[in-house]
């Protein structure tokens, strides 16, 4: 009976699991209206495919060294060959293969950070919204504290404590971005709490956990999904910055930021070694952001910017 009462509200979350086909279709039509978002989504899908199929597509293993072809130029430059389409780095490793495998590393970081902070953010945000003042204040203050320290400085501090590695990069970036999710969930949940369907559910005797996760949460999802999509690109950028500072993924992992740091010494002699990894980061982040913007516009006309 209670489930029936909240159905219309559930249906309002277009495009999420369980939404009727008509809603999904409306969402999709609104999404493809935006050409930038469509291009972004297409590029993201290509990058995802490259990452999944890296072992098949990449011409060589990412860490195989070709001693006879150290710093080979890319195809279009003087002396470029088909053997190494994008050339090789300072240790004679094929750039194309490393970049393709780098997509795997970057997407892995982005998705891990996003999923962990999404789950933790939902739990902490809902807890804050539903608990007594004391717990709410503790959670809110803690998030304020994290946000007071500049993102990269905090990430650097965390990595300095834990030691630089791929896993610790994910931990650090997750902590840095957690407050955004917590605050968003808390604010949307608080806005929902005053509404009648919540009161109806409470009157019907729904338990607190059910009220939190199955009555209120679905109605907070739209902005959260947008935040999650854009959060992936932020995480990729932040992790690449840590890698560039030598505090992220450690060599020989082919992370784009780390590759860029390795290439710095060749900035004069072999400019493409610097150009390519950065371009990979930029293209990935731009596409995710374009798709995320489209997602926001399609999911919630109220948040529409243009």
């Amino acid at each position: 009976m209670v489930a029936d009462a909240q159905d219309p509200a559930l249906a309002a979350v277009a495009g999420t699991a369980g939404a009727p086909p008509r809603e999904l279709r409306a969402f999709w039509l609104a999404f493809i209206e935006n050409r930038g978002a469509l291009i972004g989504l297409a590029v993201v899908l290509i990058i995802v495919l490259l990452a999944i199929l890296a072992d098949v597509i990449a011409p060589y293993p990412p860490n195989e060294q070709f001693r006879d072809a150290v710093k080979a130029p890319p195809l279009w430059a003087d002396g470029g060959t088909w053997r190494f389409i994008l050339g090789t780095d300072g240790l004679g490793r094929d750039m194309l293969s490393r970049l393709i495998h780098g997509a795997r590393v970057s997407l892995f970081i982005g998705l891990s950070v996003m999923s962990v902070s999404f789950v933790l953010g939902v739990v902490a945000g809902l807890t804050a919204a539903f608990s007594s003042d004391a717990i709410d204040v503790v959670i809110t203050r803690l998030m304020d504290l994290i946000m007071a320290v500049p993102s990269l400085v905090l990430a650097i501090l965390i990595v300095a404590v834990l030691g630089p590695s791929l896993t610790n990069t994910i931990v650090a970036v997750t902590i840095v971005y957690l407050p955004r999710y917590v605050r968003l969930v808390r604010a949307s949940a608080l806005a929902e709490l005053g509404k009648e369907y919540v009161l109806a559910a409470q009157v019907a005797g729904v338990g607190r956990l059910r009220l939190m996760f199955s009555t209120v949460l679905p109605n907070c999802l739209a902005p959260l999904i947008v935040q999650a999509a854009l959060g992936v690109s932020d995480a990729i950028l932040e992790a690449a910055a840590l890698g560039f500072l030598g505090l992220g993924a450690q060599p020989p992992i082919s992370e784009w930021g780390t590759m860029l740091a390795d290439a710095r010494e060749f900035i004069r002699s072999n400019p493409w070694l610097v150009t390519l990894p950065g371009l990979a980061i930029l293209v990935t982040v731009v596409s995710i952001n374009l798709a995320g913007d489209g997602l926001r516009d399609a999911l919630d006309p109220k948040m529409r910017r243009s």
Partner: protein
Amino acid sequence: MLKYLLRRAALTVPTFFALMFLTFIAIRLVPGDPVEVRVGERGISAERLAYFRHELGLDQPVWKQFLDYVWQLLHGDFGTSLVTNEKVLTEFLTLFPATIELATCAMLLATLFGIPAGALAAVKRGSPYDQVLMGLSVTGYSMPIFWWGLLLIMFVAERWGLTPVSGRIDLIKYYFDPVTGFMLIDAWLSGQKGAVLDAARHLVLPAIVLGTVPLAVIARMTRSSMLEVLGEDYVRTARAKGLAPWRVIGLHALRNAMIPVVTVIGLSVGALMAGAVLTETIFSWPGVGKWLIEGIARRDYPSLQGGVMLVSSLVILVNLIVDVLYGVINPRIRHGR
């Protein structure tokens, strides 16, 4: 009003204490012994080791160390660098003007170009100009600025030779004692011919790099805020009165559209400090961002601890000021709470 101000200020006190606790714990957890950093890798006698540990207060119980730390912080003592043996606060204050100079120029650049560009895009909504600008804006705020900096060094500085690669001024040609710590002003005060120009040439690339993300954000923000305002009744009224279009846009619309934009500018101090870490590292700009990174590399924990504490306190304070000012401009917020 005073009550509101005091309330907002009081709210930051627990944050400050939590921050002290956080930096204290974090630095204690860092692997490696600070004494070893001080004396080097060579072994020393047990007495010397005990002496150094006592001098750094490491022989005290942890809670005592924390209380001492808070006591010192409240007295403005942010510790002493293990590497240079200087007071952390002194080092910070010496380097900070370089960061302020860079950040101010970056923000000026971002505001001066971002606001008109965004406003124009809103007015010419849907035009090719609007589309190109929004495309550039997405690229701008997606930019890995460490790479952007390297690209600019590669082309503008190395290939075309238009600007120097790093530093704040040509130290071989110009030498003068710092007065304000702001190179542009010091160069001007020194009266040496060409010094100001040289300082400006050193500043231009780092400012562009640090200003790129704020520029993109401000342009986007101005555009969307402007679009909202352009649909308001008072803008229609102004148009109907027959005012010149530039008056309607410049005076009536833009001024109201600026409120959210100004907030965004004020609240971007944290992001600016994060960006400064990368920008200063790339351009060897002797500011606090580069200093923090070097603190990690040299395992200079007191510097790192004090540095994080100082930078974060600054961000908290600026956010507080922005918040309060916002309350002053917009009474609805002040009374809402």
